[in-house]
């Protein structure tokens, strides 16, 4: 009887045991680090204020995800300005997801802003800050409220341009379009980072 031979060969074990251990450790620690970072908004769930637990957590999740995707996209501005074609498909899709996330961030931000503006007799953060820490209101809170909204029109514009011009954006005749779109992607990262830092700053002084 003819002996059956396997059709697929098992991969040859190339790594020694110590290298396996290192690989598992690196992957494990990277997942733990990323998990811890993503856990940041859920610390709001421990807050004594019910508003911070519900609205604060929701807005924090949306803001953190927006910032992560915007930062990733901001870094893709470097290969885009150099005319690297292979990043274009992921750039076109991720800028769309960034737009969607930033929209959720603005909607949840509006929700948070409602409670933020409640009267001081009801524990409203804005009124409390104006009395107890006016510079937080003056220098941080106003900037946060206003500048973060700019993310929406610019991310929609970038989504439209990157889709409309397709792979031709790396062509020499579209050098101007590529340059200004790259700057706009970095602007998105700047606005998202500024929004998250100022938002965290406000919440550190006074929660909802």
């Amino acid at each position, binding site marked *: 009887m003819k002996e059956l031979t396997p059709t697929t060969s098992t*991969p040859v074990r190339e790594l020694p045991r110590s290298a396996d251990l290192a690989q598992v450790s690196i992957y494990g620690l990277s997942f733990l680090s990323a998990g811890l970072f993503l856990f940041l908004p859920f610390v709001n769930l421990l807050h004594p204020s019910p508003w911070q637990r519900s609205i604060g957590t929701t807005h924090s999740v949306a803001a953190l995800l927006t910032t992560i995707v915007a930062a990733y996209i901001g870094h893709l501005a470097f290969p885009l300005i150099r005319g690297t074609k292979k990043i*274009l*498909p*992921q750039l*076109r*899709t*991720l800028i*769309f*997801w960034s737009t969607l996330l930033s929209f959720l961030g603005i909607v949840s931000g*509006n*929700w948070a*802003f*409602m*409670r*933020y*503006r*409640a*009267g001081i*007799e*009801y524990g*409203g953060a804005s009124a409390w800050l*104006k*009395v107890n820490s*006016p510079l937080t*209101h*003056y*220098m941080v809170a*106003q*900037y946060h*409220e*206003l*500048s973060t*909204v*700019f993310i929406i*029109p*610019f991310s*929609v*514009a970038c*989504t*439209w*341009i*990157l*889709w*409309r*011009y*397709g*792979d*031709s*954006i790396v062509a020499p*005749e*579209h*050098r*101007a*379009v590529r*340059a*200004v*779109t790259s*700057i*706009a992607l970095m*602007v998105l990262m700047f606005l998202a980072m500024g929004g998250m830092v100022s938002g965290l700053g406000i919440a550190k002084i006074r929660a909802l």
Partner: protein
Amino acid sequence: MIRSQHSRSGALLPWYTRFWNWCKQFPAILATGASTPPETAGIAAAALISAAIGAVMMMVTHHLIHTSVDREQFIEWLGSWIPGSQNTDPVTGNIGSYAGIETVLLVGWLVSWVILHDLLQHRQVSTRTIFFGTFGLLVVAIVMCWHPLFPYLPLQ
């Protein structure tokens, strides 16, 4: 073989890498881009400059409503379509005139986009025009967000 699911050596990638690669290519209609790209920079110029115009209009309105009660009431009415703008419950609060300046941004951005798109779509717009038209206006809008530079804006 789907390239995004296998490494160059042909081995199946880990599930998280495959998931991330899937995210980067979904939806496919966006991943592939438009089939007939424009030949001029006018379409991009219209999209970016109009975004900056919307931002500046919002900030100018913000400054105007801080210097006139009548203007603030009008802008508050303008934003009354946004959920939560007119809530009367003092505990949950309301968005107030901020909804109005969001509306100004939305209207200013979209209306100027339609107009600029119509004007510029077949024109070759220079890098300098797009750059200063977009980022010059954006810098103005961002600077206007920072109250300490404008003494007439209230500290409290």
